[in-house]
Each structure stands twice: as structure tokens, then as C-alpha cells.
């Protein structure tokens, strides 16, 4: 489809959405060209960072109104050929659509390309948003407010009533959901569209058992059609936070902790399979401004991907995203498929071809923190410990010293600890695990330890070559700091 924004009075055309004509102040309407023909074609043999795979073709498409548009493809066409956007033939297909200045059209297009009826007027819908921590939209940690606004407009177009829509999310353990929803701009969008926002952490939950695990699932999610809306991000711990990971926050805090304790790569896929089998689930992923690098809590940075992905199969969508961004498909995604293995070549892709989309985004470095001397050995820690890790390490940036290895989570093995020195167990799971492995950490930091004491201990570890000791003077200083911080608010 080719869209032009046209002035109703003077017929001036724009390739961008504009509100009003700057000449005659006339209203603007969209002109949608759907009968596309190939008016020109070039085969390109020079690579660039965003287009590393060559050769590729660029078609010059022309619609019934004479409007033109370039389109990258790996397929061969001839001048004069018709160009038809094929719809999905299978239920597990993934549609990938580029946003051409208009997120609303891209979402509509992405959903429209999927097989069968997806969303209808009588639906009661739960939008499982992605709002993990309090951050501004430009930081690309949470759903872009423009994405949610466009999605709501699409749902209204389908005839779904405002009162039938609930936007729901809980921030990562340790973060306040309403704060996060407010700072991200999502709450404002809900208010603007008169749609309710629910903090999932407040429940109620319903316990459902599957494959020997008990999941306390947000009750509303079991009674509604769920639109899973991850913002596509890299994640230092599990590779990517995408469609599969976004579903992990449909369960209560205790279940989340247990899922991480029992190895999130194995437990999360069980939840995903349970949900897929018991509720109607469609993922519409926000990859407008995604994230690359370390992920939401650390040094991640926006990736201006400008994509919308949609699928009824969350794992297939994640796998397609990994393939497009040239990242490895992580275990929690592969395990979420029925076979425990995903080959992106076997996924039906509509909208854009994967090879035509592919370029490298920055992959996460699994052992790095914001501090150059503080490394991580991650045993799939829960979000609470991850939060603690990033809080502590970022507060010590600027204080250089001896390298230390913070050990977090319970999925620690002897191999992971091999040849690693100055281990510091962070969090109760890691402390217990190191004890069971008979490893002797240089220090232990419990979860219930005061934050100022945690920082003091880490400081000492950085600046002391051997095993640091907390002296009575240190304790007095800590108490003074605590007092001061209370007085200062």
C-alpha cells in the first residue's frame, strides 16, 4: 500500500502525515493506493551497515494514483509486474511491517496480514503492555506512548469498546508500576483514550498448574483476549526481552521469583505454552524505538528499528526478530516452541522479507555492568537481584580499583566460576548456591542488608586488594550517612 496525505481543498500531496495544509489551511485525508505495479527496479551490489546483505533489489512501485514508493526485496521482478502483498497462510506466521511515519497504519497492516480473524467488536481485551521501570519514552525501555495510542485507535476501528479494553502491566520486582507507567507516558495515553490501566502486581491471581509447576496468573488475563505488546529489547541476561519475556509479568511476584530460581529458560516456556493453550493470544510488538546493547536496566541504548511485528505465536515472533537483528535465538525463546528448537527459515514471514531486513544491532555483553571493574556471573537472577546489581554498580562508577565478580542467581555451575577470582555473592539465592557448591566468595551481600552498607562493602572490595573488613569507624560513618540521607529526604 502507498499512502499520501492530501489536502482536500488544493490537492497538494505529502509523503508525511500533516495536520492541515500550510497553503490553503484545508483538511487532510489519506489516499491509499493498493494496486501496485513495478515501475522500475535496481539491483544493488554495495553493502552498508543497515543493508549488509548484497545483492538486493529495490523496486520502484507505482499505485493507481501515480504515487511511487521504493521497496527493498530479495526477489526478482520485472518492470510492469504487479506487486501484491501476500497474506499469511499459517497460524504461526509473523508479519513484519516498516513504519512509514504512521504507526497506526503499520499496526493495522501487521495485524491485517495475519491469518483469520484476530480482533473483533465484541472482544474483551487485555493489552499486556511492556513497562519495566520508570523511564522516559526516549530511553526505549518501555512501550512508546505513540505505539499504544496507535494500537488503541486500531482497536476502536475494529469496533472494540473503550470499556472492554484494559491496559495492564507490572514493573520489574522492586520498581513501582504506577511510577513507571506515569513516567513512560503510558498512563497519559490511557487517560487520553479513557481506557483503564491495571497494576498486575495488585492481582487478583488464579493458580493454574502445568507440567508440575504452579503459576499464579493475573485473573483478568484468563478471561480476556490478550494482546501481548512487548517493546523489543536486547537483554544481557536472557538475550532478548521480547514477546515471550513480556508474558512473564502476567504472574505474581512470588511466581516470578520461583521461575527464575528454577531456571527461567525452562519455566517461562512452560508458562507461555500454558497461556497459548488456554487463552486467545496475539502479540503486536513495538519495535519502533527498540533497544540494543545491555538491556533496560544498564547500558542499553535505543535502536531506531521502526518496525511493527505481529503474530499469534510469541516464540516465532521473537525468533523472527532475532533473525532480523542478527542476534542468536535465546534458549527461553527456542524452548517456547513445541519442538524446543526454532529455525527462522521455517517461520512464515509476511510483510517484509527477513533477508531484506537483516542488519546487526548491538548485542548484549553478558558479563558487563556500568562499572568497568565490576563484572557479573549471572545464574539467571530474578529481576529483584538484577535491579540491586545495577543500582549498586552504577553508583560506584568513577571509583576504579580491583576487579570483582558479582555472582547472582541460583543457576550457577562450577564451570561458570572456573578461574574467576574475588567472587562476591549478591542476593540470597547466590549465597545459598555458592555454599552448596562449596565455593568461598570474598564477600556476601544479603538482600536485606541496608543499601548504604552494601555500597560501603563494594567500595572496600574495589579499593582493597585482600578481604576487606568493615571497621567500627566504617559502621559509624554508615550510620551518619543513613541519618543524613533521612534528614535530607
Amino acid at each position: 500500500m502507498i499512502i499520501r496525505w492530501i489536502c482536500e481543498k488544493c490537492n497538494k500531496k505529502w509523503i508525511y502525515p500533516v495536520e492541515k495544509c500550510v497553503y490553503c489551511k484545508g483538511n487532510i485525508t489519506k489516499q491509499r493506493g493498493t494496486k501496485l505495479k513495478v515501475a522500475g527496479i535496481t539491483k544493488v551490489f554495495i553493502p552498508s551497515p543497515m543493508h549488509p546483505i548484497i545483492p538486493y533489489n529495490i523496486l520502484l512501485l507505482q499505485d493507481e494514483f501515480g504515487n511511487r514508493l521504493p521497496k527493498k526485496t530479495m526477489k526478482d521482478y520485472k518492470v510492469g509486474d504487479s506487486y501484491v502483498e501476500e497474506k499469511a497462510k499459517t497460524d504461526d506466521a509473523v508479519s513484519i511491517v516498516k513504519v512509514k511515519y504512521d504507526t497506526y497504519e503499520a499496526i493495522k497492516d501487521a495485524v491485517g496480514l495475519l491469518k483469520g480473524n484476530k480482533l473483533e467488536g465484541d472482544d474483551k481485551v487485555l493489552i499486556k503492555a511492556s513497562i519495566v521501570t520508570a523511564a522516559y519514552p526516549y530511553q526505549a525501555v518501555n512501550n512508546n506512548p505513540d505505539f499504544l495510542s496507535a494500537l488503541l485507535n486500531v482497536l476502536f476501528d475494529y469496533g472494540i469498546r473503550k470499556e472492554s479494553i484494559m491496559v495492564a502491566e507490572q514493573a520489574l520486582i522492586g520498581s513501582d508500576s504506577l511510577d513507571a507507567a506515569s513516567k513512560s507516558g503510558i498512563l497519559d495515553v490511557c487517560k487520553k483514550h479513557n481506557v483503564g490501566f491495571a497494576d498486575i502486581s495488585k492481582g487478583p491471581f488464579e493458580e493454574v498448574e502445568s507440567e508440575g509447576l504452579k503459576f499464579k496468573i493475573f485473573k483478568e488475563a484468563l478471561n480476556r483476549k490478550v494482546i501481548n505488546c512487548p517493546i523489543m529489547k536486547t537483554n544481557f541476561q536472557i538475550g532478548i526481552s521480547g514477546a515471550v519475556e513480556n508474558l512473564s509479568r502476567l504472574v505474581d511476584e512470588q511466581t516470578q521469583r520461583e521461575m527464575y530460581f528454577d531456571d527461567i529458560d525452562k519455566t517461562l516456556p512452560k508458562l507461555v505454552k500454558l497461556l497459548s493453550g488456554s487463552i486467545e493470544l496475539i502479540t503486536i510488538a513495538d519495535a519502533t524505538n527498540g533497544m540494543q546493547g545491555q538491556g533496560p536496566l544498564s547500558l542499553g541504548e535505543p535502536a531506531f528499528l521502526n518496525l511493527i511485528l505481529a503474530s499469534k505465536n510469541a516464540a516465532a515472533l521473537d525468533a523472527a526478530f532475532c533473525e532480523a537483528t542478527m542476534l542468536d535465538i535465546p534458549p527461553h525463546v527456542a524452548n517456547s516452541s513445541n519442538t524446543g528448537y526454532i529455525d527462522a527459515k521455517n517461520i512464515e514471514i509476511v510483510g517484509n522479507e527477513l533477508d531484506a531486513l537483516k542488519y546487526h544491532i548491538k548485542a548484549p555483553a553478558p558479563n558487563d555492568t556500568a562499572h568497568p571493574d565490576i563484572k557479573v556471573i549471572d545464574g539467571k537472577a530474578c529481576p529483584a537481584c538484577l535491579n540491586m546489581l545495577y543500582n549498586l554498580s552504577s553508583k560506584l562508577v568513577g571509583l576504579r580499583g580491583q576487579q570483582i565478580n558479582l555472582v547472582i542467581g541460583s543457576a550457577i555451575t562450577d564451570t561458570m566460576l572456573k578461574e574467576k577470582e574475588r567472587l562476591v555473592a549478591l542476593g540470597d539465592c547466590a549465597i545459598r548456591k555458592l555454599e552448596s557448591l562449596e565455593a568461598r566468595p570474598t564477600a556476601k551481600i544479603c538482600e536485606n542488608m541496608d543499601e548504604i552498607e552494601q555500597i560501603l562493602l563494594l567500595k572496600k572490595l574495589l579499593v582493597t586488594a585482600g578481604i576487606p573488613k568493615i571497621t567500627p569507624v566504617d559502621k559509624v560513618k554508615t550510620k551518619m550517612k543513613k541519618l543524613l540521607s533521612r534528614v535530607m529526604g
Partner: protein
Amino acid sequence: MFIKGVGMTEFGVQQDSTSHMVYESALESLDDANMSMEEIDAIVLSNNDILSNGERQRHSASVISSLFKKKVPIITMLAGCAGGGTALWTAVKLQSSGNYNNILVIGFEKIVANVNKKVTDEILMGTERIYEQSEGLNFPAENALVMQQYMLMHGATSDDFASVAYKNHQNAFLNPKARFYNTKVSLEDIKNSPIVASPLRLFDCSIPANGAAALILSKDETDIKVLGSAEGSDYIAPFEREDMTSWDATKLAAGEAYKQAGITPSDIDIAELHDAFTSVELISYEDLGFCKKGKGKEIIRKGITSINGKLPVNTSGGLKAKGHPISATGISQIYELAKQMRNECGKRQVDNIKYAMAQNIGGAGSTVAVHILKKVN
């Protein structure tokens, strides 16, 4: 307004700092004008702040202030590949305001300083970001689509475009400042060069280069008068224009420049045109009024724009073979024309020049500066 002095570095892959290249070209222009920096009372620059060359230097105006120890007004003009011509157009407007006697105009760029794909990406940023960049429509691809439409509409052939490249390479062979100086390129080399973006071959594309070019625009009467100076614009993406094969920005700028000069296209004796791609030179013949629409191929087939033809075009070698250091290109065109008008071009000298034209394009016909110079006795 008059051109009092010109200077330029060699266009090539030298890794001098941009400051060094700027200094070298400015010094040559001052020597050419028999002037000192003392007499310069404003400076107009053009440069693209290329990120991939390792210099990481923004705010060129203040760098130039340090370099020349000058505290006069210094302004920077950005217009993609039309930066040099646009800087000159700005200087002409500035001088016509009455306050500045001698304006130094400099275009400079260091772009060949990284691997090809980084340089490609750097240049790609000059195309429209959502429809073009995200679809991999870099400048060669964009111009390939224009070229293909031109071929379909007007029956031009690949051989016509190869002839443009061959002509310009022959000229560059004679130009000591050209990147292809003294380098033989045969018609067979051109026709057999690899496809870059079909139907464009490698030798249909201009060659990136590093370099700087400077001129002094003065109120003092010299032998070269600026008779016309005009600027035109068009939408960024050729696909959104009514006709992809005829560029309004050139037609608008040329129309205005002819009007200012009081001459017609047939009066032009020599021209430096923006042959970023061979197809652009052919289209420009038409847009500048040297022939009717669709007849550009006839001009090259008849040899009219060869060095011995009726209207020699790109005697310097053009962007094609002299090299294309983005913002320096527009000023280097004036350098060539000034040298030609002063009979200082040796083996590539053209006789009896009265009127000369420079056409400098940014993007695929998005910004165009056209200048007409007159030889004054």
C-alpha cells in the same frame, strides 16, 4: 562582484587533516589574488562534519577562526553535495548587502578515511530516512532508478552514459589536481566495470575524494565577473516528484541565473556540471537548456560537450574523475572555470571563453546552485 583569487588542493586520498587542506587552498587563493588574510572581512564555509573520518570535529566556523586568526563573521552553509555552490551563492548575497569587500569562500571535506560501507552509510544519510534509507536506497541506487526511468522514457543507452564517463576521464587525465590525473581509463574499462546498482556501473559513479577549494569574492574589479548566482530546491526524494527525470531545482536556478546574466543557454562557452552520476550530466544538459527534454543523448553522441566541442563540459574531469569531496566540489568548479578563463589550463585549455557556467547539485536534484561567470577584459 568578481572572482579575485582561487585555490584548491589535489583531490585524492591524502590523509591530511581538514584544517591543513583548508589552509593550503586558502593560501593558494590569497596568493592568486595577491592578497593577505588581513584583507578578508567575512568567510563563508561549507563542510559536512563527516563522522566516519575520525576527526570528530563540529563547529567548523570557530576552527577556521583559530586557523586563520580571524574574528570576522564566519558562517557555515550545509547543502549536501551542493554545499560549495550554496556557500558561494550566500557570499554573493552577503556581498550585495554592501558591507563586505572581500569574502573568502571555502568548501572542504575529508570523506575517504574509512571502509567503503561506512562511507556509503555516511553519504546515505543525505537521502530521505524512512522511505529511502530504510529500503537501502543509497545515492547510486536512487540515481540508478532515475537513470532507468530516463532510459525507458527517452531511449538513452548504457553506451551514452559510458561516453559521458569516458569524456570526463580523458579530461581528468590532463588535470594535475584530479584524482584520475595521468590515469588512463578506456571506454572498455568503463563498459566492463562492475554493476553497482543496475543499470549503473562503477564508472558511471563519481569518485569520492578528500580535498578543499577556496575562492575570494571581491568588489574589486578583476577579469572574472559573477554575472548570475541562483539557488533552487526540490523535494528530497525523486520518487515523490511528478517527473523523476527532469529536476526542477536545476531548471529554477538556471532560469534565474540566465535572467540575472541577461544571456541564454546558447551563450555558454564552457560548463562544469555536477556529474555525480553520468546520468545526471545527461539530464542536466536538458534542465540547463542546452537541448530539449530527452535529447541529452544527442549532445554526448555528437561530441558537443567534448573538450574540442562547441560546449566543453567538465574539462576538469568533473566529479566523475577529478573527484568529489562533497562540499569542496562546488568551489572547485569555479576554480576550473577561472583557470580556463585565464588560459592557465595547459593541455586541457579551451579557447575563446566569454561565458562560463557552474552547476552544483545536492542530493538527487534537491538543492542546486547555478553560477554564470563572464570574462572581462
